[in-house]
């Protein structure tokens, strides 16, 4: 698959890190913190302990001033580290969006100074066009934006949007005045008034989405936040009630000291899910960043999230599953016709046919039957081009022979008109070819059928493996094609797709998506044409091709700048990665609490009940070093996990139960064990640096 290489800024790029540090200090503003309830609790705790430190300085401290200061400082660091993660994700996103804006290739547009053919124009980028600008489009030019014809008449190739290859006439006034961006003028000229603002808004939108202030929380983020808030409330309850419990215990034990507010705040901050709470915004933004990295611009975070859930993937056959055009693979002469004669005639008829199909016939004739290419002028022949009316092309030779090739129906009626017949024997051949996914092309000389050329869709290399991967992810692939069901079934089978929608029209596509959705499935699709717009609007994840029409881009919720339809697979992976990162870090965060209890509870109560020292299974040096180690670990783990939150937990296409088992082992079991080691290590360092005072 094609990948546009863009310099992905490294994690330590100073142009991102330095502003991120400044930004993370600015984000200490409580108005920013209140948006993230978990971190707001830390913020309040930091303020409280800072106050306690000031009180201790004045000589009324509940604990040694140095200890309170150390706790307070590390609590502030906890917030700053979380802010830093968010700023890093924002910075990277903005940098990527910026480089995208620069790198983006544009359709040039001839902007007219006034509404008159022949007046001066300036060539500008289509993205700079605004509504009501006037542009000139001449033969061979692409229409830069959706618009309305003000002057002129021209034939326009709208096949990119409609699929209909015959050119259409566009002229000012009446119902043929609307033109669509991305279509091409084949003859003459048009003066067009632009009717919509350009797709650049996608980029603006994108940048807005990675900026904290304007960022909207996605549904899953909200649901997760609720869970985190509940954990926070539970631990708030636990720590708040611990003060009365401690007072009571000191009363009955007759000795020891009531737990200090500093220790309670430290315990609270260690217990509440600060790791995931602090990294949650960064994870969401990083998901958008990864989308940009693959050259996809999402217009909502919701769409990125939904991508992870997709059950059904609708893919257009042409250009996605198969190479855009068909190729001749076999010549089948009718019985009684010599193969040489047949191939010779077919080659003659195709010499001036510049379509890919025509070229492939000439190539096959040379490769398989050794018939060399000739120049049509040399043999005194006249080329008859394909028209939408005749549905066939061919040559009229000087000796009176008229060779025609085209769709079986068209050739059938052509020979019948000339008094010929369509041989019965060919009918079964035609059917066999159709069934195998090929397209039969009939060839006739005057009123006599010579034979059939078998054209075949060529399935893209490696596509089958990609669909197998999707199947392992639990995603059903459905091919959309205008072909008849027989052909569709054959290509679907060859490319390894699960299902197909044959003879698709905009209505059937829309109906199909709705049916899937009624069944509870989430549908993703790609599209580029205006006729895809209703289906794109209906689909849950809709990736519009950048080469597509404005209508398609507006109906979709993502735009693929590479216009690569298989990009959906990447999009799904990024969506899943985003969710997995959230889930894994939540598990990790909660699992961490086990060890923190074993650090803090004995430290806090060993004065009251010396036997509780038995719970100090890590053998931390002193109660103060134990509490400090837990707080420091809690802050440092945020920094340590920033790369993971920015790059995401890797996703592999394996069965759900295996994925769960692996992630549970790493982040659940690992989350229980890792902090034991981490806290012990920090405690040893604190002792080594003689930063702890002995005893409580």
């Amino acid at each position, binding site marked *: 698959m094609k990948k546009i290489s863009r310099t992905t800024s490294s994690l330590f790029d100073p142009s991102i890190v330095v502003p991120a540090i400044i930004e993370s200090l600015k984000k200490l503003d409580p108005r920013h913190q209140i948006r993230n309830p978990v971190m707001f609790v830390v913020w309040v705790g930091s303020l409280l302990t800072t106050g306690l430190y000031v009180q201790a300085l004045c000589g009324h401290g509940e604990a040694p001033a140095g200890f309170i200061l150390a706790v307070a400082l590390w609590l502030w660091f906890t917030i700053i580290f979380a802010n830093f993660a968010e700023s890093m994700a924002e910075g990277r996103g903005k940098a990527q969006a910026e480089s995208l804006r620069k790198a983006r290739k544009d359709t040039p547009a001839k902007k007219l100074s006034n509404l008159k053919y022949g007046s001066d124009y300036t060539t500008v980028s289509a993205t700079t066009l605004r509504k009501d600008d006037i542009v000139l489009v001449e033969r061979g030019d692409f229409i830069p934006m959706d618009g309305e014809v003000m002057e002129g008449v021209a034939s326009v190739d709208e096949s990119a949007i409609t699929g209909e290859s015959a050119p259409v006439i566009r002229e000012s006034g009446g119902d043929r005045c609307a033109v669509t961006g991305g279509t091409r003028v084949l003859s003459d000229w048009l003066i067009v008034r632009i009717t919509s603002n350009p797709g650049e808004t996608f980029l603006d939108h994108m940048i807005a989405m990675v900026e904290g202030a304007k960022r909207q929380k996605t*549904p*899953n983020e*909200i*649901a*997760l936040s*609720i*869970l985190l808030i*509940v954990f926070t409330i*539970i*631990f708030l*309850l*636990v720590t708040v*009630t*611990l*003060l*009365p*419990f401690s*007072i*009571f*215990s000191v009363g*009955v034990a007759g000795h020891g000291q009531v737990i200090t507010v500093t220790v309670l705040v430290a315990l609270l901050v260690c*217990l509440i899910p600060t790791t995931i709470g602090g990294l949650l915004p960064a994870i969401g933004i990083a998901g958008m960043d990864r989308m940009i990295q693959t050259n996809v611009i999402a217009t909502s975070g919701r769409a990125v999230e*939904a991508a*992870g*859930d997709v*059950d059904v993937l609708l893919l257009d056959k042409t250009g996605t599953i198969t190479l855009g055009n068909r190729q001749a693979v076999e010549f089948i002469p009718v019985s009684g016709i010599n193969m040489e004669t047949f191939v010779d005639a077919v080659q003659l008829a195709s010499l001036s046919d510049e379509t890919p199909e025509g070229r492939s016939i000439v190539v096959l004739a040379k490769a398989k039957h050794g018939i060399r290419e000739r120049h049509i002028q040399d043999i005194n022949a006249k080329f008859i081009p394909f028209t939408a009316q005749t549905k066939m092309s061919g040559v009229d030779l000087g000796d009176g022979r008229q060779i025609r090739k085209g769709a079986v129906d068209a050739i059938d009626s052509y020979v019948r008109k000339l008094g010929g017949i369509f041989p019965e024997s060919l009918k079964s051949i035609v059917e066999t070819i159709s069934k195998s996914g090929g397209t039969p092309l009939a060839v006739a000389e005057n009123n006599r059928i010579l034979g059939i050329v078998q054209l075949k869709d060529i399935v893209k290399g490696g596509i089958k493996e990609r669909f197998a991967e999707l*199947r392992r992810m*639990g995603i*059903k692939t459905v091919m959309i094609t205008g072909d008849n069901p027989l052909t569709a079934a054959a290509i679907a089978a060859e490319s390894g797709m699960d299902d197909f929608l044959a003879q698709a029209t905009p209505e059937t596509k829309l109906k199909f998506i709705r049916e899937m959705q009624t*069944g*509870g*499935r989430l549908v993703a699709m790609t599209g580029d044409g205006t006729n895809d717009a209703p289906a794109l609007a209906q689909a849950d994840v809709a990736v519009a091709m950048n080469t597509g029409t404005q209508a398609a881009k507006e109906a979709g919720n993502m735009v693929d700048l590479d216009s690569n339809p298989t990009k959906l697979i990447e999009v799904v992976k990024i*969506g*899943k*990665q985003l*969710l*997995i990162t*959230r*889930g*894994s870090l*939540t*598990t990790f965060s909660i699992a961490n609490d*086990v060890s923190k*209890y074993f650090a803090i*509870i004995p430290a806090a*109560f060993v004065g009251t*009940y010396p*036997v*509780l020292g*038995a*719970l100090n299974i890590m053998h931390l040096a002193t109660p103060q070093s134990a509490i400090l180690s837990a707080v420091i670990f809690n802050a440092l783990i945020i920094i340590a996990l920033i790369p993971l939150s920015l790059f995401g937990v890797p*996703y592999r296409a394996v*069965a*759900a*139960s295996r*994925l*769960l088992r692996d992630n*549970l082992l790493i*982040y*659940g079991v690992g989350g229980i064990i890792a902090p034991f080691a981490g806290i012990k290590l920090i405690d040893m360092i604190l002792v080594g640096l003689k930063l702890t005072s002995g005893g409580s």
Partner: protein
Amino acid sequence: MSHNDFIQMGIYLVVLLLAVKPLGIYMAYVYEGKPAGLNIWLSGLERWIYRICGVKPEKGMTWKEYAIALLVFNILGILMVYAIQRLQAFLPLNPMAMAAVSPDSSFNTAVSFATNTNWQGYSGESTTSYLTQMLALAKQNFSSAATGMAVLAALIRGFIQKQMNTIGNFWVDLVRTVLYILLPLSIIFALILVSQGVPQTFSPSAKATLVQATKDSNGKPMTEQDIALGPVASQIAIKQLGTNGGGYYNANSAHPYENSTPLSNFLEMIAILLIPAALCYTFGVMVRDRRQGWALLAAMLVIFIPCLWASITIEQKGNPLFDKLGVDQRATAYQPGGNMEGKEARFGVVSSAIWSVATTSASNGSVNSMHDSYMPLGGLIPMWLIQLGEVIFGGVGSGLYGMIAFVIVAVFVAGLMIGRTPEYLGKKIEAFEMKMASLMALIPHIFVLIPTAIAVLTVAGKAGISNPGPHGFSEILYGFSSAGNNNGSAFAGLNANTVFYNTALGVSMFFARYWLMIPALAIAGSLSAKKIVPTTQGTLPTHTPLFVFFLAMVILIVGALAFFPALALGPMVEHLILRSFDFTQDQTLSIVECVRLHSGLTLSEVEGLMI
């Protein structure tokens, strides 16, 4: 654990599990309205009840209508129980001429029996008339159990139904539960209990002449003893089956008239978990995937069996201080061994330990031994099982809907870990469900921790403590854990029949019950309106051992994290003190004094133990 212990535990589990499938299927058919014998034969009666009450059985209710009907029914129940207790002196069936119950005790009991908690601040045989026992208390045993099961039925419908805004009809669920499930089982069970010698009579107390005359507390000579009787069997049957636990007598199932023989003891233990366990299977049948029901049952057993094992082991091992004194506590052919304080000699260590674990994992709360007298860790297990939120079996209906709230939390995290927005049984779990499930996990914690904190700070709260030291803290914590999770059992050392405890515990019970039911119904309503997402390879399987294990871990970790500090200051400290106690260092004190100081027992209790 000895072979004998294993055999007793094994038989208990096997008999329980054998009953799960048949009863589970039967209950599913009752809720689905499918023919299941009784509901055909008694359908005329069912229709007659609806006609008399003006209920339109075919009319579905939205979750809000369902919740309102439920609350109205339950609040009327509370008022009725309150009124009967206050007025019992003027009402019939009062052969012992019991006076009106005090207002705070009446309030506590009324809430207690409506919320399926059945905390008993009063002493049944010396407080309540036969009418109060039958019409107020036994009746509430049925209606509180049926309310819990109705909520569960509605929640299950939420999973089955597609894009509907109703969740069934509360009155229909209520009537069917009572008529086809609770009444028939209770009648059969009551008859079995009567066969074992449990009284069922309207006669007044019997009088027995004492073999040896004694003196009462005022020093007057006594020659006769009152033996309290009454309609006992009928109440014990539903008390066990409906996870109520409110005994007829103060001593609850330790009293020989509530629990007369080893067989009655075994059957009562089975009855505690029978319906909660079978409802898991009902769930599986109703959601058309029986593996899901087995998975929930398995998650419960993953926690239940180790607790059972630990409790038996700890209690059988006895008091470490006795070991140091050279007292033989082993189970031998001549003695049961272990910690027998507060246990009935008729039942012994194992049957008592099994009962204590079963009654606290289910929100039953009946006791056949005094949990207060268990070893510190032996007492920690029942307390912690309650604190887990009464979801390991739990109350009838309420245990499973509480469990489903945990499943929603577990599925949410696990779902994220496989890269999908979470779903359970094809229903997407979104912000609303998370909000409600989180409330269900949070509310019990609020009504355990905050009242405990208030109690340990106030004079009124501390007045109830009979044992000083950390054990006194354990008693208060146990009391509020029990009320805040609707269990109803107690560390009996706490004197809770005071205005403070009657009121505080009553309020805890009330909110812990209905503030859980309403979110459960809200989830039912929200799920019912959703589509069902088809299962694919990418769907999180929720019936695998991995998920069962994960679910159990979520329950354990949430429970452990919320109560670790409190438990550390109560039973854990008790245990550590007991373990680390060194006689040699305290030579100046008498052994009795040492034990008293460190165990928190009273002097007479210690002396009793020493003999």
